[in-house]
């Protein structure tokens, strides 16, 4: 799907995306010529249809994770199905762990609210984000920032 600016005869570019959490999706596209913007509002069925293809409107901002679709669309998956769902330590206990960003208490609590089936994947995404940005401690603000930048509103 593309939006073409009829006045400029130029394809509009993806500008921003929002997932309000009610199953809908908003995506904004802008014309690189005149700057005019349009917002595409997808209802829950349309949003789910796109999500079920394992694709991301506007392009991926994050490399596809193993079992990303399965882990995000299956409801009530088995706790402990994956070996990456351990809660992060607040204080690194080993030298190797010290190289990983730590999590403050509020961020850890928020992470614990993520369903266990998908928690390990979410943990890894935030950890990688913090490491790539030189962030030593993951806070709720860092999580919000990562969600915005990486388009993780659905996670």
């Amino acid at each position, binding site marked *: *799907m*593309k939006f*073409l600016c*009829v*006045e400029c*005869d130029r*394809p509009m570019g*993806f500008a921003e995306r929002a997932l309000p959490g009610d*199953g809908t999706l908003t995506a904004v596209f802008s014309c690189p010529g005149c700057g005019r913007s349009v917002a595409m509002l997808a209802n*829950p*069925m349309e949003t*789910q*249809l796109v*999500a*079920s*293809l*394992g*694709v*991301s*409107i*506007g*392009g*991926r901002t994050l490399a*596809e994770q*193993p*079992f*990303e*679709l*399965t882990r*995000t*669309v*299956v*409801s*009530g*998956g*088995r*706790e*402990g*199905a*994956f*070996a*990456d*769902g351990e809660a992060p330590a607040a204080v690194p206990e080993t030298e190797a762990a010290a190289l990983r960003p730590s999590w403050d208490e509020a961020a850890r609590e928020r992470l614990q609210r993520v369903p266990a*089936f998908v928690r*390990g*994947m979410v943990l*890894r995404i935030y950890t990688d984000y913090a490491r790539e940005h030189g962030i030593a401690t993951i806070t709720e603000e860092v999580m919000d920032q990562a969600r915005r930048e990486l388009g993780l509103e659905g996670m």
Partner: protein
Amino acid sequence: MSCLPCNRRVCDERGAAPAAGFRVTRVRGYHELPAEEGGTLPAQIAGQRARVQARLAFVGSVVAVMSGKGGVGKSLVAAGLAAALARAGRRVGVLDADLHAPTAARMLGAPRVALAVGPAGVAAAKAPCGVRVMSSDLLLPDEAPLRWREPEQAGFVWRGALETGMLREFLSDVEWGALDELLVDLPPGTERLSALAELVPGLAGAVVVTIPSEASYRAVRRAIEAAQGAGVRLLGIVENMAQARCPGCGAASAGFAGDAGEHLQRESGAPLLARIPFDPRLQAIDQGSTEAVAGALAPAAQALVARLER
């Protein structure tokens, strides 16, 4: 803006005035956009397919185990063939594509451990007989059905796409390693076979499972026609519950009436790989013991390998 009849950005030849209330325009179609200005979704889908191909580059043959009818012992045949192949020294994996009624992992005795996740993918479970397994059973709580996250409305719109997406991830995101054969245990019917054939263009073929009855013959015949219509090679037929066998003395007696296996063999030209008796000893597979079933299917496994290598 351009003139529709003249296909020019500014019509200076006809000077045609548009009808009242209409603007004269010709908007470019999707395929008229330069590739770099096209949407990102086709490229993302192509990337998914490429990951499947890359993973399966280390798999000798992908074989579907299917039937047009439920309850004929398709999963038993898939697990038994896999165990027999492993016993013969082959490197084998089983992908349980029956997402809503998964049984392959338990039949093969695969432990319900936490699956390791690394950058390269999710580790397959390893059954005691050496077969690698991936199944939705490993991902769900005991006896829990497969359910999807919201929204629940109009699920028919997207449910098929989700199931195909899971199948794709089971193919591309599992660290299968190097395998000689990857058996895909399909649910009854033909829809999942079509999805598999699209995801795996190099699909080696299908083994079809039936029981002797006339009803099974009719349902499986339809499935064979659908498979052939999708360009899937028929590797062979397995007739399950072909006879009843006394658990005490081992004597065989007539089982279901009918000759579906031979009938399908004559019509399709594919070999009848095995006729498995209804033998209570084979039920040990329900507890994850594959010995008896692997023994019953050993000749079929050997014949299958010969067909694959032909």
